[in-house]
Protein backbone atom coordinates (compact mmCIF):
# COMPACT_ATOMS: atom_id res chain seq x y z
CA UNK A 1 0.00 0.00 0.00
CA UNK A 2 1.30 3.41 -0.81
CA UNK A 3 2.05 5.52 2.19
CA UNK A 4 1.50 8.80 0.44
CA UNK A 5 -0.81 9.76 3.22
CA UNK A 6 -0.52 12.88 5.22
CA UNK A 7 -1.97 12.81 8.68
CA UNK A 8 -3.11 16.34 8.09
CA UNK A 9 -5.55 15.07 5.52
CA UNK A 10 -7.26 13.20 8.30
CA UNK A 11 -9.50 14.70 10.80
CA UNK A 12 -8.28 12.34 13.49
CA UNK A 13 -7.29 8.76 14.18
CA UNK A 14 -10.80 7.49 13.52
CA UNK A 15 -10.78 9.15 10.13
CA UNK A 16 -7.44 7.55 9.24
CA UNK A 17 -8.63 4.17 10.47
CA UNK A 18 -11.79 4.39 8.42
CA UNK A 19 -9.73 5.26 5.39
CA UNK A 20 -7.48 2.23 5.87
CA UNK A 21 -10.44 -0.08 6.35
CA UNK A 22 -12.03 1.23 3.17
CA UNK A 23 -8.88 1.03 1.06
CA UNK A 24 -8.45 -2.56 2.21
CA UNK A 25 -12.09 -3.27 1.48
CA UNK A 26 -12.53 -4.76 4.89
CA UNK A 27 -15.80 -5.37 6.62
CA UNK A 28 -15.97 -2.78 9.34
CA UNK A 29 -17.60 -5.35 11.63
CA UNK A 30 -14.73 -7.76 11.08
CA UNK A 31 -11.58 -5.70 11.08
CA UNK A 32 -8.40 -7.62 10.41
CA UNK A 33 -6.50 -6.31 13.37
CA UNK A 34 -3.04 -7.52 12.42
CA UNK A 35 -3.17 -5.95 8.99
CA UNK A 36 -4.80 -2.72 10.05
CA UNK A 37 -2.52 -2.22 13.02
CA UNK A 38 0.52 -2.74 10.83
CA UNK A 39 -0.66 -0.26 8.25
CA UNK A 40 -1.71 2.26 10.82
CA UNK A 41 1.66 2.05 12.55
CA UNK A 42 3.53 2.39 9.28
CA UNK A 43 1.66 5.59 8.46
CA UNK A 44 2.52 6.98 11.88
CA UNK A 45 6.11 5.82 11.54
CA UNK A 46 6.37 7.40 8.14
CA UNK A 47 5.16 10.70 9.51
CA UNK A 48 7.70 10.51 12.29
CA UNK A 49 10.49 9.96 9.79
CA UNK A 50 9.41 13.10 8.03
CA UNK A 51 9.83 14.78 11.38
CA UNK A 52 6.25 15.81 11.43
CA UNK A 53 4.35 16.27 14.60
CA UNK A 54 2.22 13.26 15.19
CA UNK A 55 -0.61 14.38 17.38
CA UNK A 56 -1.11 12.55 20.65
CA UNK A 57 -4.51 11.30 19.56
CA UNK A 58 -2.93 9.29 16.73
CA UNK A 59 -0.47 7.68 19.12
CA UNK A 60 -3.22 6.87 21.57
CA UNK A 61 -5.11 5.07 18.83
CA UNK A 62 -1.94 3.18 17.90
CA UNK A 63 -1.72 1.93 21.46
CA UNK A 64 -5.36 0.93 21.40
CA UNK A 65 -4.90 -1.01 18.17
CA UNK A 66 -1.87 -2.86 19.53
CA UNK A 67 -3.78 -3.70 22.67
CA UNK A 68 -6.74 -5.06 20.76
CA UNK A 69 -4.48 -7.01 18.44
CA UNK A 70 -2.63 -8.65 21.30
CA UNK A 71 -5.85 -9.43 23.07
CA UNK A 72 -7.12 -11.21 19.99
CA UNK A 73 -3.96 -13.25 19.71
CA UNK A 74 -4.43 -14.66 23.18
CA UNK A 75 -6.46 -17.82 23.35
CA UNK A 76 -9.90 -17.21 24.73
CA UNK A 77 -9.70 -18.32 28.33
CA UNK A 78 -12.76 -19.61 30.07
CA UNK A 79 -13.58 -17.12 32.74
CA UNK A 80 -13.49 -18.85 36.08
CA UNK A 81 -15.97 -16.54 37.67
CA UNK A 82 -18.51 -17.49 35.05
CA UNK A 83 -18.34 -14.28 33.07
CA UNK A 84 -19.69 -15.71 29.88
CA UNK A 85 -20.15 -12.82 27.57
CA UNK A 86 -16.57 -12.62 26.44
CA UNK A 87 -16.79 -9.52 24.25
CA UNK A 88 -15.00 -9.24 20.98
CA UNK A 89 -12.07 -6.96 21.86
CA UNK A 90 -12.88 -4.99 18.73
CA UNK A 91 -16.46 -4.25 19.72
CA UNK A 92 -15.83 -0.84 21.25
CA UNK A 93 -13.65 0.24 18.34
CA UNK A 94 -16.19 -0.90 15.78
CA UNK A 95 -18.92 0.97 17.59
CA UNK A 96 -16.87 4.15 17.62
CA UNK A 97 -16.00 3.79 13.95
CA UNK A 98 -19.61 3.29 12.95
CA UNK A 99 -20.69 6.22 15.02
CA UNK A 100 -17.97 8.36 13.55
CA UNK A 101 -18.87 7.25 10.04
CA UNK A 102 -22.42 8.31 10.70
CA UNK A 103 -21.42 11.83 11.65
CA UNK A 104 -19.14 12.06 8.66
CA UNK A 105 -22.17 11.26 6.53
CA UNK A 106 -24.22 13.77 8.45
CA UNK A 107 -21.56 16.39 7.79
CA UNK A 108 -21.81 15.66 4.07
CA UNK A 109 -25.56 15.99 4.25
CA UNK A 110 -25.23 19.38 5.90
CA UNK A 111 -22.77 20.49 3.27
CA UNK A 112 -25.23 19.64 0.55
CA UNK A 113 -27.95 21.81 2.01
CA UNK A 114 -28.32 25.17 0.33
CA UNK A 115 -26.08 27.47 2.36
CA UNK A 116 -26.45 31.19 2.81
CA UNK A 117 -24.15 33.29 0.69
CA UNK A 118 -23.06 30.21 -1.21
CA UNK A 119 -26.28 28.89 -2.72
CA UNK A 120 -28.91 31.18 -1.39
CA UNK A 121 -28.92 34.91 -0.95
CA UNK A 122 -30.98 37.29 1.07
CA UNK A 123 -32.09 40.77 0.35
CA UNK A 124 -29.30 43.06 1.42
CA UNK A 125 -30.41 44.95 4.42
CA UNK A 126 -30.65 48.62 3.78
CA UNK A 127 -29.23 50.39 6.76
CA UNK A 128 -32.26 52.45 7.61
CA UNK A 129 -31.78 52.93 11.29
CA UNK A 130 -28.44 54.55 11.84
CA UNK A 131 -29.36 55.51 15.36
CA UNK A 132 -27.44 54.38 18.36
CA UNK A 133 -24.46 52.11 18.54
CA UNK A 134 -23.58 49.64 15.88
CA UNK A 135 -25.71 46.61 16.48
CA UNK A 136 -24.39 43.13 16.56
CA UNK A 137 -24.67 41.52 13.17
CA UNK A 138 -26.89 38.54 12.69
CA UNK A 139 -26.10 36.58 15.78
CA UNK A 140 -28.77 36.29 18.35
CA UNK A 141 -27.28 37.02 21.70
CA UNK A 142 -26.67 34.09 23.98
CA UNK A 143 -24.57 33.13 26.95
CA UNK A 144 -21.54 32.66 24.76
CA UNK A 145 -21.73 36.19 23.42
CA UNK A 146 -22.04 37.45 26.97
CA UNK A 147 -18.99 35.56 28.21
CA UNK A 148 -17.15 36.54 25.08
CA UNK A 149 -17.90 40.21 25.63
CA UNK A 150 -16.51 40.10 29.14
CA UNK A 151 -13.45 38.24 27.99
CA UNK A 152 -12.92 40.79 25.24
CA UNK A 153 -13.36 43.60 27.71
CA UNK A 154 -10.66 42.29 30.00
CA UNK A 155 -8.34 41.55 27.15
CA UNK A 156 -8.62 44.87 25.40
CA UNK A 157 -9.25 47.10 28.33
CA UNK A 158 -7.44 50.37 27.89
CA UNK A 159 -7.08 50.75 31.58
CA UNK A 160 -3.84 49.50 32.96
CA UNK A 161 -4.46 47.72 36.18
CA UNK A 162 -1.70 48.30 38.59
CA UNK A 163 -1.70 47.32 42.16
CA UNK A 164 -2.95 50.29 44.05
CA UNK A 165 -0.35 51.32 46.55
CA UNK A 166 -1.23 53.36 49.56
CA UNK A 167 1.95 55.32 49.89
CA UNK A 168 3.15 55.43 53.40
CA UNK A 169 5.03 58.62 53.82
CA UNK A 170 8.06 57.31 55.62
CA UNK A 171 10.47 60.09 56.01
CA UNK A 172 14.20 59.58 55.85
CA UNK A 173 14.58 62.54 58.18
CA UNK A 174 12.46 60.81 60.81
CA UNK A 175 14.66 57.78 60.65
CA UNK A 176 17.82 59.90 60.80
CA UNK A 177 16.51 61.35 64.04
CA UNK A 178 15.55 57.95 65.28
CA UNK A 179 19.04 56.58 64.71
CA UNK A 180 20.67 59.64 66.24
CA UNK A 181 18.38 59.35 69.26
CA UNK A 182 19.25 55.74 69.77
CA UNK A 183 22.98 56.37 69.41
CA UNK A 184 22.89 59.36 71.77
CA UNK A 185 21.28 57.14 74.35
CA UNK A 186 23.41 54.02 74.15
CA UNK A 187 26.63 55.22 72.47
CA UNK A 188 26.75 52.45 69.91
CA UNK A 189 24.41 50.03 68.27
CA UNK A 190 24.77 46.99 66.06
CA UNK A 191 23.73 47.23 62.44
CA UNK A 192 21.31 44.32 62.89
CA UNK A 193 19.53 46.07 65.73
CA UNK A 194 18.62 48.89 63.37
CA UNK A 195 16.21 46.51 61.69
CA UNK A 196 13.88 45.19 64.31
CA UNK A 197 11.75 42.18 63.43
CA UNK A 198 8.39 42.98 62.00
CA UNK A 199 9.51 46.05 60.10
CA UNK A 200 8.16 46.39 56.60
CA UNK A 201 10.39 46.36 53.59
CA UNK A 202 9.80 50.07 53.20
CA UNK A 203 10.87 50.74 56.76
CA UNK A 204 14.05 48.78 56.19
CA UNK A 205 14.87 50.70 53.03
CA UNK A 206 14.29 54.04 54.70
CA UNK A 207 16.34 53.04 57.72
CA UNK A 208 19.20 52.04 55.48
CA UNK A 209 18.97 55.32 53.57
CA UNK A 210 18.99 57.24 56.83
CA UNK A 211 22.10 55.40 57.92
CA UNK A 212 23.87 56.19 54.65
CA UNK A 213 22.91 59.85 55.00
CA UNK A 214 24.43 59.96 58.45
CA UNK A 215 27.64 58.43 57.19
CA UNK A 216 27.75 60.93 54.33
CA UNK A 217 27.32 63.78 56.77
CA UNK A 218 30.07 62.20 58.85
CA UNK A 219 27.84 62.14 61.89
CA UNK A 220 28.27 58.44 62.57
CA UNK A 221 31.08 55.96 62.27
CA UNK A 222 30.76 52.41 61.12
CA UNK A 223 33.18 49.78 62.32
CA UNK A 224 33.67 46.05 62.20
CA UNK A 225 36.30 44.08 64.16
CA UNK A 226 36.69 41.32 61.62
CA UNK A 227 34.93 39.80 58.62
CA UNK A 228 31.46 38.49 59.44
CA UNK A 229 31.54 40.11 62.84
CA UNK A 230 28.75 42.47 63.84
CA UNK A 231 28.86 45.92 62.29
CA UNK A 232 28.72 48.69 64.85
CA UNK A 233 27.38 52.17 64.50
CA UNK A 234 28.53 54.95 66.80
CA UNK A 235 28.27 58.74 66.94
CA UNK A 236 31.10 60.61 65.27
CA UNK A 237 30.15 63.90 66.87
CA UNK A 238 29.09 64.83 70.34
CA UNK A 239 25.37 64.66 70.80
CA UNK A 240 25.18 68.41 71.40
CA UNK A 241 26.47 69.14 67.91
CA UNK A 242 23.51 67.50 66.32
CA UNK A 243 21.34 70.19 64.80
CA UNK A 244 17.94 68.83 63.98
CA UNK A 245 17.17 71.85 61.81
CA UNK A 246 19.60 70.72 59.14
CA UNK A 247 18.05 67.35 58.96
CA UNK A 248 14.65 67.89 57.45
CA UNK A 249 13.52 66.16 54.29
CA UNK A 250 14.41 69.08 52.09
CA UNK A 251 17.90 69.33 53.37
CA UNK A 252 18.44 65.66 52.78
CA UNK A 253 17.17 65.89 49.24
CA UNK A 254 14.12 63.65 49.74
CA UNK A 255 11.54 66.42 49.67
Amino acid at each position, binding site marked *: MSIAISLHNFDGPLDLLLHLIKTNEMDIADIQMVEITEQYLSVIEHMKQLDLDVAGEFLLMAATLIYIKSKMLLPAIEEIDGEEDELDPRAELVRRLLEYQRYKDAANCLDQLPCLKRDVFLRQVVASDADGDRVDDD*ISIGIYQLASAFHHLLKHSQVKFVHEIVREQLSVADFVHKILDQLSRCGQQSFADLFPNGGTRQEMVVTFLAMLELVKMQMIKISQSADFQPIWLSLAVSSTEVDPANLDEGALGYG
Partner: protein
Amino acid sequence: MDERCRAVAALIFAAEHSMSLDRLCQLFDCSRSELRPVIAQLQELYPIQVGGFYLAEVAGGYQFRTDPDLAPWLSKLSRDRPFRFSQAALETLAMIAYRQPVTRGEIEYLRGVDSGGVLKTLLDKGFLRILGKKDVPGRPLMYGTSKHFLEFFGLKDLSALPTLKEFSALEPTLDPVVAAESATMTDDRPVPSHQFTNEVEPTTE
Protein backbone atom coordinates in the same frame (compact mmCIF):
# COMPACT_ATOMS: atom_id res chain seq x y z
CA MET B 1 -54.72 41.07 -2.02
CA ASP B 2 -55.95 43.09 0.91
CA GLU B 3 -53.76 45.59 2.66
CA ARG B 4 -52.92 43.34 5.60
CA CYS B 5 -51.76 40.64 3.25
CA ARG B 6 -49.58 43.10 1.36
CA ALA B 7 -48.29 44.53 4.61
CA VAL B 8 -47.29 41.06 5.83
CA ALA B 9 -45.35 40.52 2.59
CA ALA B 10 -43.70 43.92 2.92
CA LEU B 11 -42.73 43.29 6.55
CA ILE B 12 -41.21 39.90 5.80
CA PHE B 13 -39.43 41.50 2.86
CA ALA B 14 -38.05 44.36 4.93
CA ALA B 15 -37.08 42.39 8.03
CA GLU B 16 -33.49 41.57 8.67
CA HIS B 17 -34.10 38.02 9.79
CA SER B 18 -36.71 35.40 9.31
CA MET B 19 -40.01 36.68 10.67
CA SER B 20 -41.83 34.42 13.06
CA LEU B 21 -45.58 34.03 13.04
CA ASP B 22 -45.65 35.18 16.66
CA ARG B 23 -43.88 38.40 15.81
CA LEU B 24 -46.30 39.01 12.94
CA CYS B 25 -49.25 38.36 15.24
CA GLN B 26 -47.81 40.89 17.64
CA LEU B 27 -47.27 43.51 14.95
CA PHE B 28 -50.74 43.06 13.50
CA ASP B 29 -52.37 42.46 16.82
CA CYS B 30 -54.18 39.35 15.70
CA SER B 31 -54.17 35.60 16.25
CA ARG B 32 -52.05 32.96 14.60
CA SER B 33 -55.09 31.37 13.07
CA GLU B 34 -55.95 34.67 11.40
CA LEU B 35 -52.49 34.98 9.89
CA ARG B 36 -51.98 31.42 8.71
CA PRO B 37 -54.17 31.84 5.62
CA VAL B 38 -52.37 35.09 4.83
CA ILE B 39 -49.05 33.28 4.85
CA ALA B 40 -50.48 30.51 2.70
CA GLN B 41 -51.68 33.10 0.19
CA LEU B 42 -48.23 34.69 0.07
CA GLN B 43 -46.53 31.34 -0.37
CA GLU B 44 -48.73 30.86 -3.41
CA LEU B 45 -47.88 34.30 -4.72
CA TYR B 46 -44.13 33.81 -4.19
CA PRO B 47 -43.39 30.19 -5.00
CA ILE B 48 -39.95 28.71 -5.53
CA GLN B 49 -38.42 28.81 -9.02
CA VAL B 50 -40.79 31.25 -10.57
CA GLY B 51 -39.80 34.80 -9.84
CA GLY B 52 -36.12 34.45 -8.91
CA PHE B 53 -36.79 34.44 -5.20
CA TYR B 54 -39.45 32.88 -3.00
CA LEU B 55 -41.06 32.96 0.41
CA ALA B 56 -39.19 30.34 2.42
CA GLU B 57 -40.02 28.91 5.81
CA VAL B 58 -36.78 29.16 7.75
CA ALA B 59 -35.58 29.11 11.36
CA GLY B 60 -39.06 29.19 12.81
CA GLY B 61 -40.24 31.99 10.56
CA TYR B 62 -40.57 33.33 7.05
CA GLN B 63 -38.02 34.91 4.80
CA PHE B 64 -37.55 35.76 1.13
CA ARG B 65 -34.56 34.01 -0.39
CA THR B 66 -33.20 33.50 -3.89
CA ASP B 67 -33.84 30.20 -5.66
CA PRO B 68 -30.97 27.83 -4.87
CA ASP B 69 -30.57 26.85 -8.53
CA LEU B 70 -29.59 30.42 -9.38
CA ALA B 71 -26.50 30.21 -7.17
CA PRO B 72 -24.02 30.35 -10.08
CA TRP B 73 -25.46 33.70 -11.21
CA LEU B 74 -25.52 35.16 -7.75
CA SER B 75 -22.04 34.13 -6.78
CA LYS B 76 -20.86 36.61 -9.41
CA LEU B 77 -22.43 39.31 -7.35
CA SER B 78 -20.74 38.81 -4.04
CA ARG B 79 -17.21 40.02 -3.85
CA ASP B 80 -16.12 38.00 -0.85
CA ARG B 81 -15.71 34.29 -1.16
CA PRO B 82 -18.46 32.32 0.50
CA PHE B 83 -17.77 31.02 3.95
CA ARG B 84 -16.50 27.48 3.78
CA PHE B 85 -16.53 24.97 6.57
CA SER B 86 -13.51 22.82 7.20
CA GLN B 87 -14.19 19.11 7.36
CA ALA B 88 -13.54 19.22 11.10
CA ALA B 89 -15.98 22.08 11.60
CA LEU B 90 -18.66 20.39 9.54
CA GLU B 91 -18.31 17.10 11.41
CA THR B 92 -18.44 18.83 14.75
CA LEU B 93 -21.43 20.86 13.71
CA ALA B 94 -23.20 17.71 12.51
CA MET B 95 -22.57 15.96 15.82
CA ILE B 96 -23.92 18.89 17.75
CA ALA B 97 -26.91 19.32 15.45
CA TYR B 98 -27.98 15.70 15.76
CA ARG B 99 -27.05 15.05 19.36
CA GLN B 100 -27.73 18.29 21.17
CA PRO B 101 -27.39 19.06 23.99
CA VAL B 102 -23.88 17.69 23.94
CA THR B 103 -20.71 18.45 25.89
CA ARG B 104 -17.22 19.01 24.60
CA GLY B 105 -16.12 15.73 26.15
CA GLU B 106 -18.79 13.81 24.27
CA ILE B 107 -17.82 15.47 21.00
CA GLU B 108 -14.18 14.65 21.56
CA TYR B 109 -14.95 11.05 22.34
CA LEU B 110 -16.92 10.77 19.11
CA ARG B 111 -14.34 12.54 16.99
CA GLY B 112 -11.29 11.11 18.70
CA VAL B 113 -9.54 14.49 18.72
CA ASP B 114 -9.39 17.65 20.74
CA SER B 115 -12.20 19.90 19.59
CA GLY B 116 -11.76 23.11 21.58
CA GLY B 117 -10.58 25.17 18.63
CA VAL B 118 -13.33 23.99 16.32
CA LEU B 119 -15.95 24.64 18.98
CA LYS B 120 -14.66 28.14 19.52
CA THR B 121 -14.77 28.90 15.80
CA LEU B 122 -18.33 27.62 15.51
CA LEU B 123 -19.35 29.63 18.57
CA ASP B 124 -17.69 32.75 17.20
CA LYS B 125 -19.47 32.33 13.87
CA GLY B 126 -22.75 32.10 15.74
CA PHE B 127 -23.64 28.55 14.74
CA LEU B 128 -23.74 27.30 18.30
CA ARG B 129 -25.25 28.25 21.59
CA ILE B 130 -24.33 27.30 25.09
CA LEU B 131 -27.37 25.54 26.48
CA GLY B 132 -26.27 25.46 30.08
CA LYS B 133 -24.22 23.19 32.26
CA LYS B 134 -24.70 19.48 32.47
CA ASP B 135 -25.68 18.14 35.84
CA VAL B 136 -22.77 15.76 36.17
CA PRO B 137 -19.51 16.13 38.10
CA GLY B 138 -17.48 19.00 36.67
CA ARG B 139 -20.65 20.62 35.31
CA PRO B 140 -19.43 20.77 31.69
CA LEU B 141 -21.03 23.24 29.29
CA MET B 142 -23.65 21.84 26.95
CA TYR B 143 -23.77 22.96 23.35
CA GLY B 144 -26.54 23.13 20.81
CA THR B 145 -27.13 24.81 17.46
CA SER B 146 -28.38 28.39 17.16
CA LYS B 147 -31.08 30.08 15.17
CA HIS B 148 -28.38 31.29 12.82
CA PHE B 149 -27.53 27.64 12.13
CA LEU B 150 -31.08 27.03 10.92
CA GLU B 151 -31.07 30.21 8.88
CA PHE B 152 -27.70 29.38 7.35
CA PHE B 153 -28.77 25.96 6.16
CA GLY B 154 -32.28 27.07 5.31
CA LEU B 155 -33.90 24.73 7.81
CA LYS B 156 -37.40 25.28 9.13
CA ASP B 157 -36.46 23.75 12.46
CA LEU B 158 -34.29 20.93 13.79
CA SER B 159 -36.75 18.30 12.67
CA ALA B 160 -36.01 19.43 9.10
CA LEU B 161 -32.47 18.12 9.37
CA PRO B 162 -31.89 15.37 6.83
CA THR B 163 -32.73 12.06 8.44
CA LEU B 164 -30.01 9.51 8.37
CA LYS B 165 -31.56 6.07 8.33
CA GLU B 166 -28.90 4.03 10.04
CA PHE B 167 -28.16 7.01 12.13
CA SER B 168 -31.25 6.90 14.28
CA ALA B 169 -31.25 3.12 14.31
CA LEU B 170 -27.82 2.96 15.87
CA GLU B 171 -27.97 5.99 18.06
CA PRO B 172 -28.76 4.29 21.35
CA THR B 173 -25.53 2.34 21.16
CA LEU B 174 -23.28 5.20 21.94
CA ASP B 175 -20.55 4.38 24.37
CA PRO B 176 -21.77 3.40 27.81
CA VAL B 177 -20.21 6.36 29.57
CA VAL B 178 -22.01 8.90 27.47
CA ALA B 179 -25.20 6.93 27.62
CA ALA B 180 -25.00 6.85 31.39
CA GLU B 181 -24.38 10.56 31.46
CA SER B 182 -27.38 11.23 29.31
CA ALA B 183 -29.50 9.17 31.61
CA THR B 184 -28.65 11.36 34.55
CA MET B 185 -29.53 14.49 32.65
CA THR B 186 -31.85 16.60 34.67
CA ASP B 187 -35.21 17.44 33.27
CA ASP B 188 -34.96 21.11 33.91
CA ARG B 189 -32.20 21.93 31.50
CA PRO B 190 -32.00 25.61 30.79
CA VAL B 191 -33.24 25.35 27.24
CA PRO B 192 -35.08 22.37 25.83
CA SER B 193 -33.13 21.42 22.78
CA HIS B 194 -36.11 20.87 20.57
CA GLN B 195 -37.71 24.25 21.04
CA PHE B 196 -35.44 26.11 18.74
CA THR B 197 -38.15 27.97 17.02
CA ASN B 198 -38.77 29.89 20.20
CA GLU B 199 -35.30 31.22 20.24
CA VAL B 200 -36.17 34.19 18.09
CA GLU B 201 -34.96 37.43 19.53
CA PRO B 202 -37.03 38.43 22.48
CA THR B 203 -39.45 41.17 21.92
CA THR B 204 -39.83 44.22 23.98
CA GLU B 205 -43.03 44.53 25.83
